[in-house]
């Protein structure tokens, strides 16, 4: 910053017109009143989203709440390979594996719990999944509950629930 060697803070780097303040203040007032008038007469163009009535529209790539994909028979597509829970930086995915009755499928998740309060919504789990079993494409971002326990969601919830908002 150019200071002209004058004492800093007394307008050493301002020209005389700026140091008089009055003209510059009037210029500032003109700028702000332009905003006021524009916003009064063009209320609709204001970028504010009136939240509960209007919802923001996010892109398709938005990472919302997770869901588990189903096979044709409704069982989870997950094979309990633990890739997602291993890669998870927040350590929020807890899987208990069990042997699958079908010999062509090795394992299935007996339990598949996600702690939504720990999750950082980074999306690494869906990147890591080898069989496209976990996805974050629900677009749900209003994740609300009245106790911490309710944020600890299980396999059935992740497989079937499509409630928007409250758990």
């Amino acid at each position: 910053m150019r200071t002209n060697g004058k004492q800093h803070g007394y307008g050493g780097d301002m020209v005389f017109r700026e140091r008089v303040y009055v003209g510059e203040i009037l210029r500032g007032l003109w700028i702000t009143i332009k905003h006021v008038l524009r916003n009064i007469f063009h209320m609709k163009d204001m970028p504010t989203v009136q939240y509960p009535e209007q919802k923001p529209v996010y892109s398709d790539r938005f990472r919302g709440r997770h869901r588990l994909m189903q096979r044709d028979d409704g069982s989870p597509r997950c094979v309990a390979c633990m890739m997602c829970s291993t890669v998870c930086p927040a350590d929020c995915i807890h899987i208990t594996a069990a042997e699958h009755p079908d010999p062509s499928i090795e394992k299935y998740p007996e339990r598949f719990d996600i702690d939504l309060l720990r999750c950082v919504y980074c999306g690494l789990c869906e990147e890591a999944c080898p069989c496209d079993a976990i996805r974050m494409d629900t677009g749900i971002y209003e994740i609300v509950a009245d106790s911490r326990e309710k944020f600890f969601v299980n396999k059935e919830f992740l497989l079937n629930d499509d409630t928007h908002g409250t758990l």
Partner: protein
Amino acid sequence: MELVVSTLLKIVFMLVLVIGLVPVVVWADRKGSAFIQDRTGPNRASVAGIRLGGLVHPIADVVKLLFKEDVRPANVHGALYALAPFIVFFVALLTYAVIPFGDYLEIGGKQIPLVVADLDVGILYILGIASLGTYGLVMAGWSSNNKYTFLGALRSSSQMISYEISMGLSLLGLLLVFQSLRLTEIVAGQGGLVWGFLPQWGVVIQPLGALLFITAVFAEANRTPFDLPEGESEIVSGYHLEYSSMKFALFFMAEYANLVIGAALITTLFFGGWNIPWLSRETITGNAGVLLPLFLGLKALVTGIVAVLFFRRAARERGKFGDGRDREPGLLGGVFAVICAASVASFALSPWRAGPEVASVFASLLQVGAFVGKVVFFCWLFVWVRWTLPRFRYDQLMGLGWKVMLPLALANLVITAVWTALI
């Protein structure tokens, strides 16, 4: 008896104006800041669906503050801590006594001057009361047993003392011109015209004095760019940090009451008070047969247009929210339609044949309206400036007060003195 009744009525009018303007200015502060920053601002609180663009929010705020717990921190200085907000609020309301809000009202052959107390030392009274306000802030800051409040109080006292000097000096020039300390005479003296076309307002005769006075009033009212006593970034919220509930609300209301009084002072001293430029009282009473119907017609036209706009909006946004809020545009349109209808209906009283008594009352009301309008404009100026300018740094504030404004005020005084002596 008549004196008591009329004085009481005038006090009530002034109190209603000031206390009524406080929530409106708070609302303007919030809504204005929102519009300046391209936001929508408060629009949620409602009474049975009536939101008035957020004007209901101050009511909600007051209700909230009334029911909040009054926390009293440990080791405060009891009596001073309790007394400080009352002093601040009391002092903020005192100044209104001497501000003339109209010329006079003529009822039944009696002339009632429209000022609560017509002191012959009006300006001295104002300056004295304004400096009393500092005591409340200092007491609050010192008794709260908190370093931030203490620093805020120190800042406010030194700032007020610094700017009171240039405030007083900038007024001296005005006193030399009008040769009176009485506010009614100062306002009456601003009624004429300079060079036949400019209104003889203080700002025209004393432009530098007006600029200095307005700046000093901003500092006295602790408004941005001089709101250092409560600089959030350095000392949290300054002298009222340790106050809660209604005690805090008193500080808050006193701040806005000071703002309104600052606007009233600027109006009275430099912008002609209740004077309407180019429309003297004689002009109004003489042409009441034209002006009164014109006024009523304009009122009917404006309210009619507003009512139509509201009704159109009601039709366009039918069922938008699905609750009480849908009723709002229709109701407001109805209110404006009633005012419009009343204005139209008053033509049945044939206002163009108004007698001298009606004309006199009409002139008085028009002047009171002019005063209120000017005060509202300067209240908006306070809001406008607050959301335009950043806060001064403390040494910059002192530098401006002592090294710029004081010499300018002195120069203004000397030049005015020489000028008045020569003429």
